[in-house]
């Protein structure tokens, strides 16, 4: 074979390897829906037409929107092969066709050129039965940011139909561990809430855990063992600048920002055993909230910023308690299950997700405070770390598959579950971001 031909093949192979699979599989993240929901609202998202002059964007905007609506559990997007007509504007929709296909809603749209090489995406939502327009808007996006634009459209569709703000245009933080025994490389990652665009925030040879978002979504607090003992850091995601917030003797763990971002709840064991503290982030002063010889940890703020939920084994086994942020008597709130820990509170404060253990089985359960009952949401044996989406529609959690950790996103009703797998290592400690600011 002539030398230049061999070179050409080598370059081709390199390009194939370098570009294979797109952004998700390049990072080894695979996404699949493991359960379905037959009672979800049927919606057709017709592929958006490209009406610009240059090259069409490489993001299939309609496909991203359909995938978002599918995984939240409240919608069932019409599979692409079943879409037989391709209207681009509302006046092109033949409603009879979509009635035959038993669709409640239809979305049409088009991508156009905007100033400075950006795109403008116009979309329209219709009620199929009433043949009535429900929403007509445009969203802008630069090349390479069209997944974000598509998530924002999905949010607007969700809000129009469900009546609650959508949470698709959000992110998640999580921890990965690759390697075995003393050769583990840990990383704190941030990705879109559907697992795309993963970015490394911190890399460490020592364990990382408990990421917590600031309410503005700009910072992460987390626990790192890089100093030999657990310490709490806070880091600006965009710049990487960070500082140590707590590095006392004993445990420095479980950071959680107050809803207004001015305080941080945390666990310190400098007094001899783990207690809950609240740090004033301006004055950097700690006030002790709990005083008990049991293990008190995993504080999370209630949405009103007045009280905290936390895990304590003061009654023998870990259970969830509530205490005023200023301190005082703690009240036990979990009574079902012999082991309840790591609470995550929905935005309305009415539902609390937690790890519920019984025998050797640990699952994610949701406690409805009005009913006083809890219900298991996950089918695994070693499920942990639940984290509510900011609109309460879904919960992220970590599970074991064999000896590896994977993440799941489950709809709040437990009907639709989606698996996010990092191919070569553990994925754990998911934390759903707050709403993003446009």
């Amino acid at each position, binding site marked *: 074979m002539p030398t230049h031909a061999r070179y050409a093949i080598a370059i081709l192979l390199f390009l194939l390897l370098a570009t294979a699979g797109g952004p998700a599989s390049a990072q080894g993240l695979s996404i699949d829906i493991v359960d379905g929901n037959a009672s979800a609202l049927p919606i057709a998202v017709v592929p958006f037409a490209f009406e610009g002059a240059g090259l069409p964007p490489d993001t299939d905007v309609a496909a991203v929107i359909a995938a978002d609506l599918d995984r939240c559990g409240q919608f069932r997007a019409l599979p692409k092969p079943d879409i037989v007509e391709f209207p681009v504007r509302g006046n092109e929709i033949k409603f009879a066709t979509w009635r035959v296909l038993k669709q409640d809603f239809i979305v049409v749209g088009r991508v156009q050129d905007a100033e400075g090489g950006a795109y403008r995406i116009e979309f329209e939502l219709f009620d199929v039965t009433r043949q009535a327009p429900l929403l007509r808007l445009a969203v802008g996006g630069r090349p390479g940011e069209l997944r974000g634009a598509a998530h924002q459209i999905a949010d607007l569709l969700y809000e129009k139909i469900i009546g609650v703000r959508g949470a698709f245009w959000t992110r998640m933080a999580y921890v990965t561990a690759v390697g075995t*025994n003393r050769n583990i490389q840990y990383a704190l990652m941030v990705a879109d809430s559907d697992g795309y665009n993963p970015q490394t925030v911190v890399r460490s040879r020592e364990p990382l855990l408990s990421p917590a978002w600031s309410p503005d979504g700009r910072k992460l607090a987390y626990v790192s063992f890089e100093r030999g003992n657990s310490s709490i850091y806070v880091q600006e995601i965009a710049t990487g600048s960070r500082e140590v917030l707590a590095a006392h003797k004993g*445990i420095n763990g479980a950071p959680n920002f107050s809803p207004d971002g001015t305080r941080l709840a945390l666990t310190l064991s400098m007094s001899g055993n*783990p207690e809950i503290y609240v740090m004033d982030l301006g004055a950097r002063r700690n006030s002790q909230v709990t005083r008990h010889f049991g*293990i008190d940890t995993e504080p999370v703020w209630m949405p009103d910023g007045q009280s905290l939920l936390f895990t304590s084994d003061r009654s023998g086994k*870990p259970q969830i308690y509530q205490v005023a942020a200023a301190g005082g008597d703690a009240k036990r709130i979990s009574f079902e299950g012999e082991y309840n820990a790591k609470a995550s509170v929905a935005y309305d404060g009415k539902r609390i997700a937690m*790890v519920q*253990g019984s025998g050797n089985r*640990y699952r994610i359960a949701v406690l409805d405070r009005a009913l006083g009952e809890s219900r298991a949401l996950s089918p695994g044996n*070693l499920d942990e770390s639940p984290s509510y989406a900011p609109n309460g529609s879904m919960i992220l959690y970590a599970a074991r598959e064999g000896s590896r950790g994977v993440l799941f996103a489950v709809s709040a009703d437990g009907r639709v579950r989606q698996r996010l797998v990092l191919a070569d290592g553990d994925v*754990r400690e998911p934390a759903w971001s707050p709403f993003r600011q446009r």
Partner: protein
Amino acid sequence: MHKPTRFILAALLATGMVACAKKVKEEPAPVSDAVAPVDTTPVDGAGRYAATDLDRVPCLMQRVVYFDFDRAEIRGEAQEILGCHAKYLNDNATARMTLEGHADERGSREYNLGLGERRGNAVNAALQANGASSAQITVVSYGEERPTCNESTESCWAQNRRVEIVYTAK
């Protein structure tokens, strides 16, 4: 049965017989394999442990204490080991150790951080009760973050529920 298979079976049986026959004639085990009784009396004439004893005296060579699930009580079998280490610390005032507390993977990570520390504290208390000084001991909890065994089985979990004794100064 196929001819080649029969041949292989015959060959296997033959080697097996050879091995069996060999076993009968086996010589007594070589000296290096024998269990040599170790004298646990400290080398120092005054009955004190010295730094060299850490790698020589069996109970000082044991550096891991195991625990029951969600418990931090020291089991009976660990008392003797801790007695030795406490004596070592008492005999060697400049010796320092870190007690690394660990938990198995079940339950939440931050709670397990608390559990690992509670186990480390229990070992610390047992050592001090036997004469060690608090200034010699540091407790660090790693919770479930540093397992020695990665399977989700009872035997694996039992290995991970532990406190590791690490001498930072002999």
